[in-house]
């Protein structure tokens, strides 16, 4: 019978909601116990989950079965105010601005222009503290910490010799004294000179080695992968690929610029040194990148 069905449904819903809330209570107590006992990540997560899940079940059953209201319907009046209201507003506005004395009116116009001027100039002046936040970049975007004579060191700060790289080897290097500096990071790659394409490496370098900036020219992520057999450098962030034997020319992916090269030489003790800074600005493009530091 319908009435019995309804009774059963209500009884079941009440029981389900009650179980949900009871679980929430028990879990909250469990949470307190675990916390006081010194904490346990998994148990805490479990009890927290159970407490909120129980509450969810209780609330949903309660709403759907024990409240179960029909939809309300309410007309939605147009947003636009009535013609009279709009007219009244505009009338009030015009009336508020109304000046009967023509002499006063022209003076008010004059003063309101000056006030606008005062507000605008003050607003501009109040923007000045923004310049306290930092110096403009100047030529900094065009420079890294590499300079003529910088010793090439590895992550541990040890100087690197040409014979330590080996064919197919890759070492991340920095200028001595700036170990870990992201903008100066470079990749020392052991190469096979026979595979270099015509004009493929423009920077002066030592036999068997080429050095490229490690900062991807797309979005500045570190170029972290080297596929030796294809001689490709790959940036894992946006999949830009650079040809190692062809001036690190981009061969696929979003970037438009090759990785800048670092000119290399050796010092008297046989350690690698830079012969200058990178041949081009490192990292992502910016509007005046072609102008060599002149705005």
């Amino acid at each position, binding site marked *: 019978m319908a009435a019995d069905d309804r009774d059963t449904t209500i009884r079941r819903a009440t029981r389900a909601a009650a179980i949900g809330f009871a679980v929430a209570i028990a879990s909250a107590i469990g949470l307190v116990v675990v916390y006081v006992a010194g904490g346990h990540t998994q148990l805490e997560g479990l009890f927290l989950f159970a407490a909120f899940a129980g509450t969810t079940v209780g609330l949903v059953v309660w709403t759907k079965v024990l409240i179960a209201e029909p939809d309300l319907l309410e007309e939605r009046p147009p*947003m636009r*105010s009535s013609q009279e209201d*709009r007219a009244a*507003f505009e*009338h*009030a*506005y015009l009336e*508020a601005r*109304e000046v009967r004395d023509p002499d006063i009116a022209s003076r008010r116009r004059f003063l309101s222009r000056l006030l606008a001027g005062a507000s605008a100039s003050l607003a501009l002046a109040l923007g000045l503290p923004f310049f*306290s936040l930092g110096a403009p970049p100047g030529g900094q975007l065009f420079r890294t910490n590499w300079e003529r004579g910088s010793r090439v060191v590895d992550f541990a700060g040890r100087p690197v010799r040409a014979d330590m790289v080996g064919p197919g080897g890759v070492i991340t290097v920095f200028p001595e004294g700036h170990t870990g500096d992201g903008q100066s990071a470079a990749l020392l790659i052991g190469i096979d000179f026979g595979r270099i394409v015509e004009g493929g490496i423009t920077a002066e370098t030592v036999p068997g080695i080429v050095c490229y900036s490690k900062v991807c020219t797309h979005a500045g992520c570190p170029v972290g992968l080297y596929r030796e057999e294809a001689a490709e450098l790959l940036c894992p962030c946006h999949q830009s690929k650079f040809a190692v034997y062809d001036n690190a020319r981009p061969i696929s992916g979003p970037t438009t610029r090759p990785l800048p090269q670092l000119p290399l030489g050796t010092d008297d003790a046989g350690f690698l040194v830079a012969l200058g800074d990178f041949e081009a600005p490192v990292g992502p493009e910016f509007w005046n990148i072609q102008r060599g530091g002149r705005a």
Partner: protein
Amino acid sequence: MTERAERDRERQTDRPVDAHGRHSRGVVTAIARWLDDRLGIAQGARKLLRKPFPDHWSFLLGEVALFALVVLFLTGTFLALFYRPDTRPVTYTGPYVPLQGAQVSAAYESVMRLSFEVRAGLLMRQIHHHGANVFMAAVVAHMLRTFFTGSFRKPRELMWVTGIVLVLLGIGAGFTGYSLPDDLLSGTGLQIGYATLLSVPFLGPFLAFVALGGEVPNPDLIGRLHILHVMILPGLLAAVVGAHMLLLFRVRHSQHPGEKRTERNIVGKPMFPTQTMVSAAAFAATVAVLALMGGFYEINPVWLYGPFEPSRVFAPSQPDWYVGWLEGVLRLWPAWSIRVFGIVIPQPFIPGVVIPGLIFALAGAWPWLERRYITRGDEEHNILDDVRDNPLRGAVGAAGVTFLTVMLVAGSNDVIAARFTIALERFTLVLRVLLVAGPPLVGWLTYRWLTRLKRRDIEEAERAGTVRAEQDVA
């Protein structure tokens, strides 16, 4: 006609005219119409445009507080971009010669950098600190105005209570901000706050450790104060000020008695253009004064104080004035360590927790206390009292102000004693006597004075054959 065509037609004829038959045009009209099409605000906006504001100068006190708060938010944002909430030691290498080579905390170093190396940094710092003082001053003045004119009465009790909450939040914001520079002065206030928390029976040590991260000072403390000062308290301040303003918007201003003014109306200058101009002027004036103070009036010169060292202190150590009264009562309270059933009630508990708690509770409950025991009656009050209209309220207010003033004076008893070369102990004794005897005495004198004024008013009115508006003699 299709709906669209109808709309187009309506748009074309939708050219309301003003009193002189002129059509309104231009950018302002176009923007207003665009907004109204989406929000339907013409009716409300029209009312708002011509909403009357009673133009009494004292109503600007609240506006000054609001504008000072705006300045505090803006300058505070600037300071936050440079400040480092970090107590790790660094070597000071900045341009301030006496401290070069000294070991200071990173927080102190960042404040020094802000003061000496960041362009406009010291100006911002000083405007910020003065802004806090001016905000609290305006709030307190606004509160006194509200109290003595009975502006807190129905229907404005909620505004009164939100106002009290704002005072508490203001004190909290000032107190937390004060300690951030990590200079020699800043830790002192914290130490006192810690001692006060610690003094709560049973819960004290627990409260103090949980709230402050351990004994004071500790490495976590600056980070906590920083988050309180730049995030939680400003958020609460903005929310409660918003609530206060919404209530004002709904309930509207009270007004002083005057011609045509009744409990059921409101007489004043329209929002646009007069009140808008007045408020803009109040804003400009507030910023002007703060800028002048920030530029010329040195405040909290942390480079003179030097970096914080827990074992050092200097005299005189003074908090900002709005905390000074709390400091004063701590100085005045006698060395009574009370035992109840063998449990120690630590000395700072009564002056540091109980008395301020009672003061705020009493202030918050005042609208209800007054209605229950003095004025009685359930009417709405929109006309303000003159102080003489309710001598008992005036007397209570004067007594309260006396009490707080003695406390505030006691907060700088050392400075005053030194300045006037009086013995500190004797001066403190005088202040103790004043704290107990002053408020009742001042209250009683005020009551007598106000009742006499009230009686004279009534007599004068009777002699002149006119009777003042009834709310004044009620």
